[in-house]
């Protein structure tokens, strides 16, 4: 089973992990990733913009691909949008499987694809004004290794 949500409100990582545990099958491993807003360079806040509809489709497509590559028992993805301040949670990816290798690999695969393919954009607010975050070449390199 997969659960994909895009929402403004915060999420409870404990509740997400607990839900993976009860999703289906003989779960032996759960790997999770939580992305947080960093304060680097005295950033005051960031606003996440997204393309509704396409964002859900793109995440669903990569969850389906992860499920075809590894024997997964459950996947949960939560991505927040709207204005977030340093320390706040942005994204959750959780994967349940029978064994840890599949869980670790699938969580990393999903994060690499989320960063480079899912239609979200970050606007950073600093003292001098607001600027759109530029994509990083290193993120493109991260995704290439899965091809």
């Amino acid at each position, binding site marked *: 089973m997969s659960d994909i949500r895009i929402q403004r409100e915060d999420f409870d990582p404990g509740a997400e992990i607990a839900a993976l545990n009860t999703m289906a099958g003989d779960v032996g491993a759960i790997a999770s990733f939580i992305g947080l807003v960093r304060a680097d360079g005295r950033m005051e806040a960031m606003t996440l*913009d997204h*393309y509704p509809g396409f964002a859900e489709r793109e995440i669903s497509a990569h969850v389906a691909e992860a499920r075809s590559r590894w024997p997964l028992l459950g996947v949960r993805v939560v991505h927040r949008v709207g204005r977030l301040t340093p320390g706040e949670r942005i*994204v959750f990816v959780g994967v349940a499987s029978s064994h840890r290798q599949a869980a670790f690999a699938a969580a990393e695969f999903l*994060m690499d694809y*989320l960063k480079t393919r*899912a*239609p979200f*954009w970050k606007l950073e607010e600093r003292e001098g004004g607001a600027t759109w975050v530029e*994509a990083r070449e290193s993120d493109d390199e991260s995704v290439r290794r899965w091809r």
Partner: protein
Amino acid sequence: MKLLYFAWVRQKIGLSEEQVSVPSDVTTVATLMEFLSRRGPGYEAAFRNPALLRCAVNQEHAKFDARVRPDDEVAFFPPVTGG
């Protein structure tokens, strides 16, 4: 054609979406971009450097040589930065 703009593309153009009747010689994303860049200074600024832009046709990532049709949904945006 339904057009959507995100992030700084939306800011330069000043719209998040619009419905546009495109001429019949607009058959690809590239020719659509040329057509749109002539619609005003905001559009011209948004489409000045295509290397900075990405696009989606009917909610699928697409290249600039992809075909577009009058009832398509086409979106323009910078490279994504989520996660």
